[in-house]
């Protein structure tokens, strides 16, 4: 018998922010919870401060204009009541992290969900990469379902869902990013192998848990855009939504903006990939 038997384990997870009413993180009105930390390091990432956990270097403490940050027992502590939300700390950080993270227990998150429950259809967990908090989610989701709410994961496909299928038991669906089909492009773009992502695409579809797929269209990358959209559309057909998203330069790190372009993908150009996806049978393709 494991020592935890009969005990309530107080599981916590680092939360970057909670949006009580979101109309863009899945269907209807949803509470969106963003966890900190992501195993990928995508070049186009427009919120790179969510990638790493804070390494407590303290650089941001010195630049905070309102002294909302301090070092206590070697750790950077954020006083949210003093914070004015100017994001100087985020701009200062050279580590792709944020000091404005709250460690929250399952019960604390549930408290927030309960407050918003009358107004929402469900919750969406996002990030960072939410599946890094697999055990937290396995504990959270059944309790959210009890409130009559739906449960969605917004994932980059890092977790092998087939191996870790317990996470899907109380999950209504996964909104999956498929950023690159070809291995060499993926290795460069997200700096992580994409075999598991593609495997997840097939697996989630086969078990009826694929809520939607998203692909970003980059400027001047005909070959890669075409390869990825062609592959995804061929797999999902009319079985789930396919959101085609334009690359936007806002928030992208300077060095990567130089590589990917300091502009937003042309709308008509992006629309041509919606047309491509539809012509290949992905009838629920749309531009966001």
């Amino acid at each position, binding site marked *: 018998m494991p020592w935890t038997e009969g005990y309530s384990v107080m599981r916590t997870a680092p*939360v970057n*922010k*909670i*949006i*009580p*009413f*979101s*109309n*863009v*993180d899945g*269907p*209807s*009105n*949803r509470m969106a919870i963003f966890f900190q930390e992501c195993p990928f390091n995508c070049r186009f990432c427009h919120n790179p401060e969510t990638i790493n956990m804070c390494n407590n270097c303290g650089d941001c403490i010195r630049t905070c204009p309102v002294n909302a940050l301090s070092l206590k027992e070697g750790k950077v502590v954020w006083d*949210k009541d003093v914070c004015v939300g100017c994001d100087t700390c985020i701009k200062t950080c050279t580590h792709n992290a944020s000091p404005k993270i*709250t460690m*929250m227990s399952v019960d*604390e998150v549930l408290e*927030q969900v309960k*407050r*918003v429950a*009358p*107004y*929402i*259809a469900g919750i969406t967990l996002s990030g960072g990469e939410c599946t890094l908090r697999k055990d937290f989610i396995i504990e959270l989701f059944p309790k959210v379902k009890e409130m009559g709410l739906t449960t969605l994961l917004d994932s980059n496909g890092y977790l092998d869902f087939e191996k870790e299928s317990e996470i899907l038991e109380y999950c209504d669906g996964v909104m999956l990013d498929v950023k690159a089909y070809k291995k060499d492009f993926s290795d460069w773009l997200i700096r992580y192998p994409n075999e598991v992502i593609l495997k997840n695409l097939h697996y989630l579809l086969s078990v009826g848990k694929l809520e939607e797929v998203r692909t970003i269209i980059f400027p001047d990358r005909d070959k890669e855009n075409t390869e990825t959209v062609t592959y995804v559309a061929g797999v999902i057909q009319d079985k789930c939504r396919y959101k085609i998203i334009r690359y936007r330069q806002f928030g992208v790190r300077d060095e990567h903006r130089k590589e990917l372009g300091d502009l937003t993908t042309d709308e008509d150009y992006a629309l041509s990939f919606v047309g491509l996806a539809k012509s290949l049978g992905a009838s629920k393709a749309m531009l966001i």
Partner: protein
Amino acid sequence: MSEALNIVKDPTLTYNQELIALAKLGENSDDTIVFSDEYYKAKEAGALCDLGEGKMPYRPRYICPDYDLLFEKGCDFLGLEPPKDLLEAVNALEIFYRHVPSVTTFPVYLGDLDKLLEPFVLKEDRDFAKKVLRLFLLQIDKVLTDSFVHADIGPEDSVTGRLLLELTEEMQLAIPNLTLKYDPEKTSDDFALACVRCMLKSAKPSFANHRMFVKEWGENYAIASCYNGLLKAGGGFTLPRLRLYECSLTAKDVDDFLERELPRYIDLQLEYMDKKVKFCVEEASFFKANFLVTEGFVKQENFTGMFGVVGLAECVNHLLGIEDKKKGFGMNKEATDLGLRIMDVIDKRVSEHVAPYCDATGHRYRLHAQVGIDTDGMDDSPGTRIPIFAEPTMLEQLETNEKFHPYFPTGTGDIFKFEETYEKTPEAILPIIKGSLSRGLRYFSGYLENCDVVRVTGYLVKKSEIEKLKAKKQSLNNVTVFGKGAQEGAHALDRRIQRHEDSTGQ
């Protein structure tokens, strides 16, 4: 220059607007109704306000005729037979509207249009019915030129309701104001969603908490003017308001306000209301000779007095010495709780007062959260709303509203401005409305940030019409000038925009 000469020489007034202003001047030349010295003193100080009601109530302020009766029996005075088809029905209504008085001179309640017209619409080809309704709405916008003209639909889905929504979105007119009586059991999600779509594009309809109104008034209620709950075949005699911020200025502290000053102002407003109601019923000819009364389209016993309040937020913030609105009413528990204590005092004292002639409301006046007028500036926020520029997240704003809306059977409401992504996701708004109505919200209004037709405080105007007035040109809608004042003085069009990235701290 005399006031009359000012009116006649003003190039921004239409002929009709001049006529109304001159009539008001005539009405106000009479001093038959006399109030106590203390009343006049409080009015002079700005603590009491009669909302331009005029000195002599020669008709009730708001009248909600029984249009079913018109369709059932016709009207002797106007020589109208009961209509037999859609053309006769809209023609009868258009004729009748012209003869329904109000404080604005225009009818403030046009009927539950979907229910009234549905039997006639169903007998016609859809395209023909739509054309007739289009001309009907055009007639209303161009002849009943005042945004307090208000029509209701719902709670059930109907062909007429759908046509009215389609036309409202297509025509982009400020008049009439429109309310959906929403009941989660009677209103289908599909119809409610059609209303949300229409609301985003044209700032109407608003959503009224049907169950709440039915509980207070019975099924036979109307939503009139801005968002006023009243009885059909009845209406509102009078609506003055306490300007709570100004009321708080004479108080030494919170206790002095709650125990002495506030009751004093309440009693002065009750004195005003009693005298206005008595004159209207006993002296004016309306309840004796007007065809609406003699033919039974309205019954005196179905009228009530509306006890208005405005500026609760500023009142509370002043009493607690809070200078930063962002840390005041609606944002901190102490301030919001004081707001509730103030409302309890008002509610109790008004409900203890025996009101003359208010039979249908148990001889009591009913509370109303007044939406403010163009000259209020930033001193008094509408009713119990959180001040503009201090609005918290939509969630927190709704939670505050839900506490205050139940106090106001004769009307209150709040307005939410949505960023453009909501145009593609109207289904994200419906659960918010449903949830909030189930928790005590009375009335929900919304619009998209880029709309031309916008809801100012309770009424609708076109931003393009405000621009006309600014260029010293005339605007057909009598209310555009209020919209201009509220925009310039109270920043009423600068309310917080609901964006998806708005987060709460953890």
